[in-house]
C-alpha cells in the first residue's frame, strides 16, 4: 500500500474519532452552537500556548454566543484532531484573566463557571475550579481605592454607550475591589462622579430586564439615603427606578437566562 493511501486512511480514521468525541450536546436556551464552536475553536490554540490576551476575545465571543450548552460538549483542536477541549469558556476565561493577573475579572468568570454549571458538565476537567476561585479571591486588591477606578470608569463608559452587560460586569468588579463609598472618583476624562458602583450595577441590571436583582441592589446602595449634594442625580434616579422595579415585578416578566446568572453571581462571596 502506498504511503499516501495510508495517510489518507489514517486521516479519515482520526477525523471520525474526533467527530465522535465532539458529540453535539442539546443546545441550551440561548446557545448559538455553530458560531460558538467557531469562536471557541479560535481560542484553543492561543489558550493551549498560554497566550492569554489572544485567547480572551474568542473565548468571550463563545461565552456570549453559547453560555450554557445543554450538556457536556467537547470540541477538537483545529491543529490536532486527537486533542479535544471541553466547552467551558467561563473557566478558560477565568484562567486567562488569572494569567494576566486581572484577579477581579478572573474571579467573576470562575463564579460564572460555577453559575452556568460548567463544573457539573465537565467536573472531571474542572478539578481546579475551587482552588483557582479561592486564589483569585485572595488576590483581589481590596486595599487601594484607586484599583477600582479603571473598572468604575470602564463601567461608566459602557453605560453611556448602553452596553448594559459590560456596565454591570465592570461595576460588579469595582464593587469587589472597593466598597461603595459615595465619594468623588474620576469616572472618565476630567469628570468626577460619586463612587456608587452598586447603584450603577442596579441601573445596568434594570436595563437588562433583571428587575428583582436591580431592586435588591438599589436597596443596598448608598444612593438611597445619602444626603450629599453630589449624589442628588442618583437619589432622583433611585426615586424613579425603585417603584418601576416594583411595578415590573408585580406585573411579572420573563426570567431571562442572564438574570439567572446575575442572581447566582450576586450571591457569591464578596458582593
Amino acid at each position, binding site marked *: 500500500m502506498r504511503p499516501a493511501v495510508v495517510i489518507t486512511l489514517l486521516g479519515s480514521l482520526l477525523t471520525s474519532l474526533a467527530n465522535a468525541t465532539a458529540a453535539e450536546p442539546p443546545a441550551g436556551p440561548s446557545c448559538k452552537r455553530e458560531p460558538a464552536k467557531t469562536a471557541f475553536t479560535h481560542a484553543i490554540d492561543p489558550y493551549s500556548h498560554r497566550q492569554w490576551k489572544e485567547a480572551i476575545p474568542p473565548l468571550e465571543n463563545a461565552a456570549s454566543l453559547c453560555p450554557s450548552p445543554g450538556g457536556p460538549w467537547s470540541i477538537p483542536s483545529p491543529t490536532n484532531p486527537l486533542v479535544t477541549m471541553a466547552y467551558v469558556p467561563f473557566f478558560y476565561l477565568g484562567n486567562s484573566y488569572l494569567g494576566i493577573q486581572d484577579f477581579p475579572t478572573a474571579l467573576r468568570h470562575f463564579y460564572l463557571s460555577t453559575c452556568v454549571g460548567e463544573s457539573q458538565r465537565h467536573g472531571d476537567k474542572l478539578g481546579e475550579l475551587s482552588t483557582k476561585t479561592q486564589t483569585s479571591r485572595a488576590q483581589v486588591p481590596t486595599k487601594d481605592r484607586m484599583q477600582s477606578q479603571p473598572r468604575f470608569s470602564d463601567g*461608566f463608559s459602557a453605560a453611556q*454607550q448602553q452596553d448594559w452587560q459590560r456596565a454591570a460586569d465592570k461595576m460588579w468588579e469595582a464593587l469587589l475591589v472597593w466598597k461603595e463609598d459615595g*465619594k468623588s472618583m474620576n*469616572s472618565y476624562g476630567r469628570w468626577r462622579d460619586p463612587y456608587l458602583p452598586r447603584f450603577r450595577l442596579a441601573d445596568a441590571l434594570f436595563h437588562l430586564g433583571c428587575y428583582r436583582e436591580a431592586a435588591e441592589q438599589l436597596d443596598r446602595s448608598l444612593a438611597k439615603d445619602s444626603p450629599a449634594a453630589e449624589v442628588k442625580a442618583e437619589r432622583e434616579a433611585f426615586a424613579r427606578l425603585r417603584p418601576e422595579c416594583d411595578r415590573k415585578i408585580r406585573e411579572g416578566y420573563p426570567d431571562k437566562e442572564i438574570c439567572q446568572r446575575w442572581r447566582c453571581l450576586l450571591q457569591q462571596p464578596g458582593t
Partner: protein
Amino acid sequence: MMRRNRNLSSATAHPFLVLALVLLGGGPLLAQTNLETNAGVQFNFSTPGAGNLALGGAFLALAFDASAAYTNPAGLTAIAAPETLAEVRHWNYTHLFTDRGRVAGQDPTTKGVDTIAGLRDGRAENQVTGLAFTSYVYPSRHGSFAIFRHELVDFEADFSTHGAYLALTRGRGPYGIPGERDARLASMRNRMDVNITAYGGAAAWRLRGLSLGLSVSHFKFSIDSLAERFRPELFSPANFASDPLVNVQSQSGEDSDWALAAGFLWESPRQRWSVGGVYRQGPDFTFEARSKSASGIDPAQLAPFAFSQRAPFHVPDVYGVGMAFRPSDACRLAFDYDRVRYSQLLDGFVDIFKLSMLDEDISPELDRFVIDDADELHLGAEYAFLRHWPVLTVRAGGWYEPDHSLRFEGENVGFGAVFRRRDAQVHLTAGLGLALRRLQLDLALDHSSRVSVVSLSAGVRY
C-alpha cells in the same frame, strides 16, 4: 474682541534716550519677508483649553477633555458622554525690538541723538481678548467624533522705532531700507494684525489599550500689516509729524488651507501611566507683500518704486510625545516634548524691498536668514481635593520655549541690527478648576517675558 495697545518705549523712555538714536530690533518672525516689522513680533502656536494651559501645555498623554480634538485627537476616546468646551483667552503680547543706539564696536558721535553705545531695545504691548476655542464631542460605540473651532493665532502689534545708527562712515541712503549704505536706519511706525482660525473635525478609535485619532482642519488666514518708513535728519530725533515719509511696506491678504493631525494615546491597564503622541501638519498660506514709495516724493530727488509679490506663510509642523503618571486618583503629573519646525517659516522667504532693483550692488542675502526649530519641554501637575464639593483642582506647570526668532547672519549691517537672536523663554503656568456633575470651570494663567495669557474655559457634558 477687545484690543489695547501701549507703546512702552515712548511711555517710559528717559528724555535723554528719546533724543538718542533709534534702531529696529530683532525677534521671532511672523510673516515670511525681510520686513523689519516681522522682527519685532512673536507668537507661539499654543494649544487650546484652560486645563491644558495650566498644566504647562503638558497634555498629549492626558488629552482628557474636548480640547483633545485639536491637541491630540486620540484622547477623544477617553470621553464617555457628549460634551462641549468653550474657552475665552486674553493675550498680552510684549513686542521686543531694537529701537535705538548704535551697533556694537562703535562709539557714538555724541552729535544730536547719537549718544548711546550699543543697541537698545524698545518694548510695546498689545492685548487681545477673544473666543479661543469651542468644540463638541460625541462618543459612540463606533468611535468618538468631534467638531471644533480653534483660534491658532490672534495677534496684534502696534509699535514705532526711532532708527538706530549703523556705521560712522556711511552716508545717508535715500530709501531708509536696511542694506543700503546708510548710517542710520529709518524710523518706523508699524502695525500688524494676524489671525489664523481652524475649523475642524476629529475622530478617534480605541483598539484594545491603544487609541488612535485623526483630525482634519480648514484653516483661515488673514494678515494686515503696514510699515511706514520715515527718514529723520541724521542726528535728529524721530518726529513722525514732520519727518518725510519715504516709503511704505504692506503685507495683506486672506487665504485658507487644509491640514491634518494624527495622534495616539496608550494607557496602562490600571490607568496609572499613559503615553501620547501627535503630529500636527501646519497649513500653508500666501499673501501680498507690497513695497512702494510714499506719495508726494520728488522724482527728481528719489526714483519712485512700487513692487508687489506673493509671499508664503508656513505654519510650522509640530511633532510631540508626552507621558503622564497618576500616583493617586487625585494627582496627575504630565510631561511633553514638542518639536516645532519653525525653520519651515523660511521656505520661500521673500525680499519685500527687491533690494537688487533698488541698487544692483546690494544682495538681499536671503540665504543668510536663519530660524531654528524649537524643542519645547512642557511639565505640569494637578491635584484634586476630592473631599471638597464641588471638586476643586489646583494645577501648576511650566514650559521652556527656545529662541525661535528670525535672525540674520550675513554681511548686511542693517539686517544684522534688526534681526537678532533673542533669549529663550520660560513660561510659568498655574490654574484652578471647579468640577460639578455636568459643568466644569477652569481658570489658567501662563506668564513669560514675551506673552502672558489668561484663560477661562467651561465644559458641559450631556
